[in-house]
């Protein structure tokens, strides 16, 4: 598993993104560390083409607009 963001908060370039695969499942590539990052990103390839699937992590706020968790 790779992380899409490096220590400076910058994303890896597309070539790196495409080079990472998980679980031996063809067409599915995972590029984020779900435990630490603000979003997970998967690039999916199937018969209909390819897409980038982004899932931002749920943010919990208190009622003064600060992140509370």
């Amino acid at each position, binding site marked *: 598993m790779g992380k*899409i*963001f490096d220590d400076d*908060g*910058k*994303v*890896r*370039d*597309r070539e790196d*993104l495409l080079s990472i695969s998980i679980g031996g499942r063809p067409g599915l590539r995972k590029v984020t560390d779900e435990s630490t*990052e*603000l*979003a997970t*990103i998967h*690039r999916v390839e199937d018969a209909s*083409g*390819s*897409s*980038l*699937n*982004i*899932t*931002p*992590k*749920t*943010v*919990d*706020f*208190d*009622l003064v*607009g600060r*992140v*509370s968790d």
Partner: protein
Amino acid sequence: MGSLLCLKTYEDVFDATQLAMDTSGAHTWKLAVFDSSLAIDVETFTAYGVAPFNAGEAAGGGYSAGGATFVPTWAIQAGSQRLRWNSGLVSIANVTDVFRYLLHYDDTLAGNNAFYVCDLGGDVPAVAETVNFTPGANGWFRLRGLRASA
């Protein structure tokens, strides 16, 4: 910067402005995509099309200015003691720009009032492919109804 609630809009909902935001389905909501150049003052930023949301928006490929329509829900999440902002999948075809921030705003209101800014934490590369946004398991964000324990 981190994800932000658009506090000026919240103020306008409750004060004499009586801003009539609506998540009942009567209003069109949009998700607009911006790059990392956004510099946002959490107390003053107001709306799509108004600084800083008048620059740095994605522009190429299949992205249309203003962003993609989506259907939000705004309801108490049972058992969580939290009010949840959620939606289904939001899909934008052929995004060809690097981006980082997602702005949620009420497109039906004349002011295009901003509601939420989601920070993805870093630049997402330009892939020239369909980009699908799906909120996390507990929605885009939640408001806690109880004071957090010290």
